[in-house]
Every structure is written in structure tokens, then in C-alpha cells.
């Protein structure tokens, strides 16, 4: 197990390295001049040139990449200009490790932007996760236990609807009616959890439902299928033959086996969601990582795009690794050393 974790960590590092390198390469292949966005309408070529030099965009790709990697480890300063550092130290922006870069259009370090956006995405992801797991897994169990009867058909039918409606549609409907027209909940605006938990939840309930609607649908079907399969296994028959009570058979014996693939899928879904729920955040104007990512693309903020790609892919790769390791703990038959 220990060696397995070590190997996986090593491969995570390698993968993140490859991803950043690829993204950086795309950054360079792009015809857009990143310096272009450093100033607004009153740009002159001289200013552009100056900015380009200051931000280091005139240097070869490898050097820039090297500085990016170095910045991740030890931190960086913008602009990287010895002269300026000596003359006007107050104009230097410090970006501590891990430095994700500097956004020319926002004139801030990306670290700052991410640290503001991250709690929002985290809140949305975790809340939606809990909601969809309860509804999805719970619904799936009820459907499986009542296979073929009306409960089953209703639940599966609703799940199908939930699955087919686009998130933006559900989001807009929820925004328009419960929030705006009926005023049941405030129009979502992020309030930190530590500031006011009740308000935090009230503001996020709509995005939570929007995401949960979609994910719960697939978890209903997943749970139902696994549950039906598990309940026909021989060890369930043995548990019944031992005289184990009905509910204990379903939960202690059945659900325990079903949880393995469910938790695996959930881990991966959560990992992806932590990188930001783009559509939901846009619909509800919550400035999480997803919103940040979209914004960076529309403004062609290449350093931010690179940073966002790196963050999202790191989440997914790490989630993948954690799920595989967890599997080794959950299923005693799995030997992770191959």
C-alpha cells in the first residue's frame, strides 16, 4: 500500500507537470499577444512594449515556463525587473509560492483571485454533493426495493427528467421563480460560511438544487442498478438464511457492497466539481472558480487560463488517486500492488 501511494503521488506530479507544459505550449501557439490586454484603449506600442518586457513576455517559451515553475515553488515578483525593484520597490507585486501567475487584465496576482473564488466553488460543490448523494442514493435504494412498482417508475422517470434538463434551464427557472418572483429565498449572493451560516446556506440553496437535480439523476440510476444486482447476490441469500432482519440485510449487507462503486464515482464527480461549476455559477452570478475560468477565456487572459487549467486538472488527478487508494481500503479483496 505504501509503495502504491508513493508511486501514485509521483505520477500525479508528472501528470500535472505535463498538463501545465501542454497548456503553456498552447499559450505560446496562440496568436494573441498577451501583452495586448495589459492596458485598455489608450495603448501605445511603447507602453505595450514596456509591459511586455516587464511581464517577461518577450522571453523565449522555455524561460517563461521555467520562471512559472520556479514561481510555483518559491514565489515570484511582478514585474521581474531588477531596476524597478531597486528604484520603486512599492510598485513590485509580490506573489508568494505557489505563484500561479499575474493577470495582466486584472492587474492582480492570480493567487488573489483564486483565493477569493475558491471558497465559493467549495461551498457550492460540497453542498450540492451532500444533497445529491442523499437524494440520489436514497432514491435509488427505494427504487431498487420496489422494482417494477409505481415508486420505482416514478423515481426513475423523475430521474430521467432531471438528467435531460440542461443545468442552465433548471438554474434559470429556480432563479426566476423561487428567488425573484416568489421571494422564497434571497437572490444568491455569496456570504461566507464563517460570517453567517444561515445566510450562507440560504444563498446557496438554489445553486445546490440546480446541481443536485442533475447529479442525483445519474446516482439514482447507478444506485438502483447496483442495488438490484447486489440484492441478487448469494451472500444476500445467506444473510436472509441466517435470520438477519430485513433492514439489516438491505443496509448492512446490500448497501455496503453498493457503496464501493458509488463512492468511487462520487469522488470523481466531486473532484471535477471542485474546479468550478461553470454554468451554475454563471446563471447565479456567483464568482467561483468556474466563473473565473469563463471570464479568463472571454477576456483572453492567458495566464489565468493556464492557471485555471492547472487547478482543475490537479483536482481531478488528485481525486482520481484518492478514489483508487480509497478503493483499496473499502474492498478487502483489492490488492493495489500489481
Amino acid at each position, binding site marked *: 500500500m505504501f509503495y502504491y501511494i508513493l508511486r501514485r503521488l509521483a505520477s500525479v506530479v508528472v501528470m500535472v507537470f505535463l498538463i501545465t507544459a501542454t497548456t503553456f505550449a498552447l499559450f505560446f501557439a496562440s496568436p494573441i499577444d498577451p501583452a495586448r490586454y495589459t492596458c485598455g484603449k489608450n495603448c501605445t506600442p511603447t507602453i505595450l512594449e514596456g509591459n511586455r518586457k516587464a511581464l517577461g513576455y518577450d522571453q523565449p517559451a522555455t524561460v517563461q515556463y521555467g520562471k512559472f515553475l520556479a514561481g510555483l515553488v518559491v514565489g515570484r515578483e511582478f514585474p521581474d525587473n531588477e531596476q524597478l525593484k531597486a528604484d520603486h520597490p512599492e510598485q513590485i507585486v509580490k506573489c508568494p509560492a505557489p505563484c500561479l501567475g499575474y493577470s495582466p487584465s486584472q492587474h492582480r496576482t492570480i493567487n488573489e483571485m483564486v483565493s477569493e473564488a475558491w471558497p465559493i466553488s467549495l461551498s457550492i460543490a460540497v453542498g450540492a454533493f451532500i444533497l445529491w448523494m442523499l437524494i440520489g442514493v436514497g432514491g435509488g435504494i427505494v427504487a431498487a426495493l420496489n422494482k417494477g412498482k409505481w415508486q420505482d417508475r416514478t423515481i426513475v422517470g423523475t430521474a430521467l427528467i432531471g438528467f435531460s434538463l440542461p443545468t442552465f434551464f433548471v438554474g434559470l427557472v429556480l432563479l426566476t421563480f423561487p428567488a425573484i418572483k416568489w421571494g422564497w429565498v434571497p437572490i444568491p449572493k455569496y456570504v461566507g460560511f464563517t460570517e453567517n451560516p444561515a445566510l450562507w446556506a440560504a444563498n446557496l440553496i438554489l445553486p445546490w438544487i440546480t446541481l443536485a437535480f442533475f447529479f442525483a439523476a445519474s446516482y439514482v440510476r447507478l444506485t438502483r442498478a447496483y442495488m438490484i444486482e447486489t440484492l441478487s447476490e*448469494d451472500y444476500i441469500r445467506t444473510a*436472509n438464511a441466517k435470520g438477519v432482519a430485513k433492514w439489516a440485510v438491505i443496509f448492512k449487507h446490500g448497501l455496503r*457492497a453498493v457503496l464501493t462503486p458509488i463512492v468511487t464515482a462520487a469522488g470523481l464527480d466531486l473532484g471535477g466539481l471542485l474546479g468550478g461549476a461553470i454554468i451554475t455559477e454563471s446563471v447565479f452570478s456567483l464568482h467561483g472558480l468556474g466563473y473565473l475560468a469563463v471570464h479568463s477565456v472571454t477576456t483572453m487572459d492567458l495566464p489565468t487560463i493556464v492557471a485555471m487549467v492547472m487547478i482543475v486538472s490537479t483536482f481531478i488527478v488528485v481525486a482520481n488517486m484518492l478514489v483508487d487508494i480509497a478503493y483499496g481500503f473499502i474492498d478487502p479483496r483489492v490488492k493495489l500492488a500489481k
Partner: protein
Amino acid sequence: MNKFLRINDLKVHFPTDDGVVKAVDGLTFDLAKGTTLGIVGESGSGKSVTSLAIMGLHRGSRAKVSGEIWLDDIDLLKTTDEEIRAMRGRKMAMIFQDPLSAMHPYYTIGQQLTEAIRVHHHVSKKAAKVTVVDMLARVGIPSPDKRFDQYPHEFSGGMRQRAMIAMALINNPELLIADEPTTALDVTVQAQILDLMRDLQKEFGSAIIMITHDLGVVAEIADDVLVMYGGKCVEYAEVDDAFHAPDHPYTWGLMTSMPRLDRTRLERLVPVAGNPPSLINIPPGCAFHPRCTFREFASAPCDQVVPELVQSYPKHDSRCLIPAPKRAELFAEQIAPRL
């Protein structure tokens, strides 16, 4: 005499889209404590369905179970779900064919056996563990306290089946149903398991129903034999009679078609022609008639009349339309020389 287990006209029918599957269609037999009944049959004979019906494991499924199952003066078919659940694993227990799939892969052997105790008795986990370790030792598992914390997949096939037996017997049930317990095991392991079951029966005095398709196993362990075909009993006798004077063409067919370890069959095996019947379309009349080579000797048309289970000799019943004396004659002339 009050028999411990009495089954009376048991029927288990499954309604399906293609018709009614008459898995068990009128089964009657009984069993005394401390004895072993071997139920012999092939796939589709209804033997496993019978055992599940006794345990009440068809409840909640589509099966329609009718008849009477008397266990110690309680009609199991009339008990409530909760009543029969309390009996399962305590008064009657079952072991299955494949011990690897029959045990939960995520719980240790110790946990599963402890559960078997604590479902029926209010004891602490610690107290239960003592009983479990003791039982594991009794069934011949070495280092039982270490094995307590191991998972089923860490046991060998034979050890697993011993653990299953331990799990079934841990509450000292009066009835043990073993559904092909040794079919998946190597022959040397099978011998050990059969010996174990015999020893435990002597010790606990339980009644055993042994379901198998292996006539050798039946001869070794059973006191009485019940041959099933097409959901019905076709022959029911004490084991010596069943093997020395079998009285039904299907039983003859089974015996002549089997190669034997103790003699070299010089001529060809005589198989039973055709295939086991589909339980949805059981042949009319005698279910065995399409495969029977002795139809011409019946006293009534086999394809129309359903034969009754009739006692042809003391403690020996058969279900056949050929008159008993004629059957004895046919056996002596045609079957016995081949065995």
C-alpha cells in the same frame, strides 16, 4: 410417530410472462431428528426450490407456495414473516454450494459468524467471539483466532465451506439443509467435509437434508433417499433399498448412465435419452415419459395419466404407471446386470 419435519403436498409455482413455472408440484416427505435425507435431482428438478421454501426464503418474491411444512408441530407456511425469520439460522439453517459467493466479501469471517449469533441471542461481541473461535476450531479450521479476522477470499475452498458449516451450526439448529455443499470442492476436500458433517450430526443430533446430484455422496451420507424429477418426487426409499432395488425408470437411468469408480464398465454407458424437462411446459401425464424406455409396460397411457406416489414396498414409494411386479422384473432382467 412424530417426525420432526413433515412436508405435505408442497407446491411452489412461479408465475412468469411465459407461463407458470411449476418448480415444485406436490412434494410429500418427512424427516426424523438425527437422520439424513438425500434429495437427488438434476437441474430443474426443484430440489433447491424445495429447500428455500422450507426456510421461507420465497417470501417477498413472486412465488406462490402452498401445502404444509410442519417443523416440530409448527406449520411454517402459516407463520408470520417475523416468526420465520427468528427461526432461520436458529432452529433451521442452510449451507450453500459456493462458499465464496455465499459469504459477504467485505466482512471478516469473524464478523459474519458473530452476526449469526447476535441476530438471535443478546450477547456481547466479546462473548460471541469466544463461541465463534470455539466453533471454528470444532469444524477443523487451524489457528481459529487468527482466522477470525480474515476475509473469505483469504481462505481456501475447503476452509471456506467449513466456515460456512460453522456459521450454520453455531446456534445448534435442529434442521440443517445443505444445498450441494461439496459440488464446488475437490474430491479430497469433499471427503473431509462429508466426514465433518457426519460427526457434527452425531454430536448435535440435527436432521440433515442433503441436496445433491451425486449418487455417490448420497450413498455415503444419507439414511433415506428422495429422487426428484420435474418438480415431483418419483422415488422415496431408505438408502439401501434405493441403491440395491431402485424402483423407477429415472433412477435406473441415473444409475446405468453413471461411470463407476469401482468397476470398469465394459459396455457403453446407457444415458437417459433427451433433456431434463422445462418446468414451464412439463410433459403431460408422467413428466418422465418422453425419456422413458419402458413406456410400453405401463398399465395406463403415460402421456395422459399422472401417476400417483404409491407405496410399492415397506418404506419405499414410487411414482410410476408400470405395475410394481413388472418393474421388479424389468430391474432384475435389464438393469441389475448393467450395474
